[in-house]
């Protein structure tokens, strides 16, 4: 029996948040002479820099220092994997809004004012901004990834039916409520950087490379972020590098908080995609072959685009077996901001392809899409190998989906909706419903990233300090990992003190990303705690002449025959007996091996599953739409903390709903982000949430040896919102001729819904 894990515990910072006393980077007290940084942003798109005159910037009141690319002592780079993203423009402007230089001034306002006073002479170069343009021009970051099985052309030709379509899937701005921010503090021992980042170790490396110093001279710390969602995995780096540079040059602390509009312009977003789909199937809707091309807008540089597009490929089948297939992934290079990680990391876009093709098939064979989905699911016998050669061993969808259909009354509601739409007459209201599954692979697909470290110190009074490489962005990672440590050491959750993530405590960590935070850091903490428990056990058994083991629970250490001592007493005795009370834990994910060259292997330790039923209503005169009800059944294994997991599921679903229905990024012809503030870029607000939202956890222990049999939960729920998009298409399909499924793109804004209704009406004539 467990005492601390598998139980609801509120977020550890809750009491501080409600009183406004949980500091974020920009809330920290800074030395009185701290400087403020601001980038000067390119007012043009792709261009060569002829002259950049900064004399007025230098002359502006309060300006202390100004730096350009030439002033960077080491590498002028903010790119994480491939070093193709200059920190400051050097010779060429690669996208509108690129940072040209940085000002350091006495106040934030002085820095921001000065940053606008430059004179740029440039020569405009041709710009490719959309996926369509880049693919047409063969502009790619690198070569395609292709998955193949069998003879797909023949499979589609031989099939009873086939269908071809194109789907555009929009990007998404993270809109973490706390914008990007960093604080660099110089000291005799080196640089201390406090950043709002998911990846302190990477910032440490990039700072060291840019300043030409060793990583050991740079400490990066993060206590909490005000949301991140992937947007602070790599995108936090430029601010920290430049703040570090400023601190190094001036010997003064440097604060940098991006203005929200600059944040929108300067930082990457979710990749937008174009999916071309050809599918062959039989009269029952069984898929015979899939030929798909996924092309994405990566922007001007690599960032994480390779891994993101790889993951789009890993999920282009979602839950379905494609007997024959050819899937191609094109990574378009454009003159726009470099796109980046966003919850789901390409997976959601891949799944959109799968769900659209199933809807197309179902419409063509006149079946309930749920039946076609069920018929095409992976099984554990002859239909269990993914396009990349991994055999699925833990599929729960064949149980999970019917269970959800049952509890949500899907079939009866669908019948009622179809009837109501058919008899709607002149009423502008149409409804739609859809049940879609999610199967999301858990592990970093870049295999070496699947490692983590933790440090636990027990002090003489029995108190425990926990540190690990994971970062807290609101997802509840710290409380979950603390639960693990408390469980293993048999103490209360309050006895474990949580501390900020620091590169000088636990080094060489991976980003808190890929939903892996508690899987990796939970295990590392468990191993550290086990090490300490074993030391205490060995010592105490010898000391007391105990044969057999000890149990650690509820603050006490006990023998099997009922003798028991307070944990703190055993700890003090162990200290006196010269036992080390500090231990590190190190974990690496077993079993995974993925070869990017062959496109084959096991990229994931396991899969997280879920499904959602969404019912929507559209107004066919205005395109206005809303989700009336959603029912979710989601597999988090044996939940470490059901309350936190519920929150992740709900938040992920609503964020996914925003992506697919209302969040629309608009670019100018030369690639400026025109929707660069919340005034023009709409995220869901309180009244957009479905009127009814039922969330249940699917009872299922993880088949793999994960931390207390739990499953990752950060990203998978976002993709449950694909059911909303499918339901909207269903509502629109009430105007389609029989057998047709509308080509509704994402986001399904009011305009997009009206456009699609108009198309369907013409088709029906």
């Amino acid at each position, binding site marked *: 029996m467990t005492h601390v894990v598998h139980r609801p515990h509120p977020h550890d910072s*809750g009491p501080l948040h*409600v*009183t*406004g006393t949980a500091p974020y980077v*920009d*809330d920290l007290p800074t030395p009185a002479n701290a400087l403020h940084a601001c980038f000067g942003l390119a007012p043009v798109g792709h261009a060569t820099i002829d002259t950049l005159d900064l004399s007025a910037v230098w002359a502006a009141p309060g300006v202390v220092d100004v730096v350009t690319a030439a002033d960077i002592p080491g590498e002028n780079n903010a790119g994480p994997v491939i070093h193709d993203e200059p920190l400051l423009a050097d010779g060429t402007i690669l996208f509108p809004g690129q940072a040209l230089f940085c000002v350091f001034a006495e106040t934030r306002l002085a820095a921001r004012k000065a940053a606008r006073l430059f004179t740029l002479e440039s020569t405009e170069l041709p710009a490719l901004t959309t996926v369509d343009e880049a693919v047409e021009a063969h502009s790619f970051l690198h070569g395609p990834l292709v998955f193949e099985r069998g003879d797909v052309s023949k499979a589609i030709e031989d099939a009873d039916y086939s269908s071809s379509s194109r789907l555009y899937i929009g990007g998404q701005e993270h809109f*973490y409520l706390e914008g990007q921010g960093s604080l660099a503090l110089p000291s005799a021992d080196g640089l201390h950087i406090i950043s709002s980042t998911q990846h302190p170790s990477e910032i440490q490396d990039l700072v060291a490379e840019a300043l030409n110093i060793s990583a050991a001279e740079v400490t990066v710390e993060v206590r909490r972020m005000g949301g991140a969602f992937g947007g602070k995995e790599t995108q936090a780096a430029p601010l920290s590098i430049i703040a570090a540079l400023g601190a190094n040059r001036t010997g003064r602390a440097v604060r940098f908080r991006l203005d929200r509009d600059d944040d929108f312009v300067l930082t990457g977003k979710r990749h937008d995609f174009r999916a071309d789909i050809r599918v062959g199937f039989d009269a029952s809707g069984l898929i015979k072959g899939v030929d798909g091309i996924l092309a994405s807008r990566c922007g001007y540089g690599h960032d994480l685009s390779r891994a993101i597009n790889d993951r789009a490929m890993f999920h282009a089948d979602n839950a379905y077996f494609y007997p024959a297939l050819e899937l191609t992934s094109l990574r378009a290079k454009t003159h726009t901001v470099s796109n980046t990680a966003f919850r789901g990391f390409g997976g959601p876009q891949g799944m959109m392809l799968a769900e659209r093709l199933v809807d197309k098939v179902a419409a063509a064979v006149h079946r309930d899409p749920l039946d076609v989905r069920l018929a095409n699911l992976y099984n554990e016998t002859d239909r269990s190998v993914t396009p990349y050669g991994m055999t699925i061993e833990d599929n729960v969808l064949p149980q999970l989906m019917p269970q959800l259909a049952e509890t949500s009354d899907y079939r009866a509601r669908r019948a009622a909706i179809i009837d109501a739409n058919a008899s709607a007459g002149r009423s502008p209201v149409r409804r739609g419903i859809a049940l879609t599954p999610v199967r999301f692979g858990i592990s970093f697909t870049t295999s070496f990233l699947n490692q983590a470290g933790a440090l636990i110190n027990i002090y003489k009074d029995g108190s425990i300090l926990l540190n690990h490489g994971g970062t807290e962005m609101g997802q509840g990672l710290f409380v979950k990992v603390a639960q693990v440590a408390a469980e293993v050491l048999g103490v209360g959750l309050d006895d474990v003190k949580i501390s900020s993530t620091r590169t000088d405590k636990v080094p060489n960590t991976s980003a808190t990303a890929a939903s892996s935070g508690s899987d990796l850091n939970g295990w590392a903490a468990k191993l550290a705690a086990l090490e300490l428990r074993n030391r205490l056990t060995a010592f105490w058994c010898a000391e007391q002449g105990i044969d057999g083991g000890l149990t650690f629970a509820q603050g006490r250490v006990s023998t099997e025959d009922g003798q028991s001592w307070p944990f703190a007493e055993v700890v003090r005795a162990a200290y006196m007996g010269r036992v080390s009370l500090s231990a590190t834990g190190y974990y690496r994910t077993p079993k995974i091996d993925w070869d990017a060259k062959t496109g084959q292997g096991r990229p994931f330790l396991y899969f997280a599953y879920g499904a959602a039923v969404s019912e929507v209503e559209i107004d066919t005169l205005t395109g206005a739409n809303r989700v009336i009800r959603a029912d979710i059944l989601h597999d988090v294994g044996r939940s470490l903390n059901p309350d936190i997991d519920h929150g992740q599921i709900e938040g992920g679903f609503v964020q996914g709903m925003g992506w697919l229905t209302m969040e629309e990024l608009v670019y100018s012809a030369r690639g400026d982000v025109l929707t660069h503030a919340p005034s023009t870029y709409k995220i869901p607000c*309180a009244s957009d949430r479905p009127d009814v939202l039922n969330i249940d956890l699917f009872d299922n222990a993880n088949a793999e040896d994960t931390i207390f049999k739990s499953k990752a939960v950060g990203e998978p729920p976002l993709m449950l919102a694909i059911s909303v998009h499918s339901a909207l298409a269903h509502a629109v399909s009430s105007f389609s001729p029989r057998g047709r499924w509308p080509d509704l793109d994402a986001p399904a804004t009011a305009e997009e819904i009206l456009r699609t209704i108009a198309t369907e009406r013409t088709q029906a004539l």
Partner: protein
Amino acid sequence: MTQISMTVNGKAVSADVEDRTLLVSFIREHLGLTGTHVGCETSQCGACTVHVDGQAMKSCSMLAVMAQGAEITTIEGLAPSADTLHPVQEAFREHHGLQCGFCTPGMIMSAADMIRRYEGKLDEKTIREQLEGNLCRCTGYHNIVKAIEAAAETMAQSGETQTASA
């Protein structure tokens, strides 16, 4: 520069500020009360909500000089004493109405004002509509709404809705 004086969380404060200083900058930078957050600075997100003379206000949409003589309450001053929480704070904590917590102070200040305006008579739909000016990117608003409902009930029962805001 203009000299301004006002009462913040019950204490008289005065300072010389540039005319263009936003109330939120005054609160955060001059007074060091950093619980009031800046999410957008364009009056869209609600993270900076405070009470000005008892009414919820986005402090980024107001100049500090406009608050001359006003009574301001920020999240740090909402609780009746150092060791008791305001019922809305208590409800947010108890109902897990937060994840990253960045929106939380603004949410709580808006909620307290909403409860006052509706004298504690709030249903879910009204709360959702009234909360449109406060964005949260982490939660799906469910627990936030639940917390506000619970706080409204507590406050209506104890007759606190008249004095929801100092």
